[in-house]
């Protein structure tokens, strides 16, 4: 969604327009849910965090700074809520069992599931700060500049965290093979 679209919707949300809020929700529920899922490794927890994020957004429109992009605000809330959630529950869950993908043979399905589970399991071994950078880069498709806006850190630090995170992920994945 373009910056102009977001700004218009937020103005309407501030005026109490529920349809505008639903449009924002429709645009951002998927990336927010995916970011939370990658941070938490649980669909149930990701759903709870997503609900909390949108509730916070709704309650804090007045605090939103229009000079910032909306995505950087909502992604920041998502990552903070996910990290808070991890702190509260202080646990790592085994991967959830999921329904088999349609259209894949048993071997292909097994390989695909294994690869997906290995990646997610490796993600859960790195610190939440590093995981946040990886989630923003690889699952939300943010650029270095956008990541620095979301996390409010310098681009230099983004690069350094991303590089360290990848090194750690490489090590974690190597152990699973």
């Amino acid at each position, binding site marked *: 969604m373009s910056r102009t679209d977001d700004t218009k919707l937020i103005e309407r949300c501030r005026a*109490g327009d*529920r349809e505008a*809020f*639903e449009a924002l*929700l*429709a645009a951002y*529920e*998927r990336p927010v*849910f*995916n970011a939370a*899922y990658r941070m938490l490794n649980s*669909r*149930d*927890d*990701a*759903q*709870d965090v*997503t*609900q*909390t994020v*949108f*509730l916070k957004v*709704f*309650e804090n429109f007045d605090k939103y700074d229009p000079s910032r992009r909306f995505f950087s605000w909502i992604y920041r809330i998502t990552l903070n809520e996910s990290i808070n*959630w991890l702190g*509260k*529950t202080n*646990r790592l869950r085994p991967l959830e069992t999921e329904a088999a*993908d349609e259209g894949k043979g048993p071997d292909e399905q097994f390989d695909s599931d294994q*690869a*997906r589970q*290995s*990646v*997610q399991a490796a993600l859960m071994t790195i610190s939440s700060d590093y995981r946040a950078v*990886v989630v923003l*880069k*690889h*699952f939300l498709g943010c*650029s*270095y500049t956008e990541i620095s806006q979301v996390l409010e850190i310098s681009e230099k630090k983004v*690069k350094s965290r*991303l*590089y360290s995170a*990848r090194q750690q*992920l*490489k090590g974690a*994945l190597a152990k699973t093979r």
Partner: protein
Amino acid sequence: MAIEQKYQDLINADIDGEISAADRTELEAFLADSAEGRALRDDLSSLCRALDSADEETPPVQMRHVIMNSIPGSRATESSPGFFQVLFAAPALRYALSFAAGVFLALSIVNSGQVSEHAFDDVTGLVGTVAEPVDTTLASSVSVDELDVAGIVSLRSAGTLLILDFDLVAKDHIEIEADYADPSIWFNGFAQLQGEGTTVSAESGRVRLGVAGKRRYAVYLHNQGGREATVRLRFLANGQVVHETSLEYRPGQ
């Protein structure tokens, strides 16, 4: 020999598509002479491909309804999530605690005249067992995605207990009828995890629920003998059936 930090940064920037033309020329010159550099680039490229190719998760079908119903000013306003989320964080515990709550709710809400004494004897008998988490097995699950009601209903088993787990959002008041023709199955309790105000009544072979807004609740059935069972569900809005489905339990599945 360790790769200079500068080239490590350039390799990462190249993989991320954030390298300038001048830097790329410099990186290519470096890689032409460095097997270690090429190995690092290949390793990182492979890792990034694995990350980028991970499937996107589809949010639960009912989530948007749930969020719209939970924001202030909604018809069915929910309290801020937090307490229940933490309390019920472990799935097994969710059932244990909700079942404990269900025993009390069942005794207070259900019209006892419609429920057999036998069923209530069993509910009372189970009070002592709910302090321990109930380990459930998912038997079947269905999604409901109608204008009037959306969400997921699952059928779980735990020994001779069958648990109908409703996670739904209803736009307005709806009725749900759960029919189980087998006379060896009887209503055994009711629990409400999120929200309040769900009404429930039970009679032989049928449980009837009335709900509005976002609701998470469970209906407990005693399945004498643990035989296979089918529960037929009908969702009614303004007396009209808006959705019909069924859930199956097969022992040893």
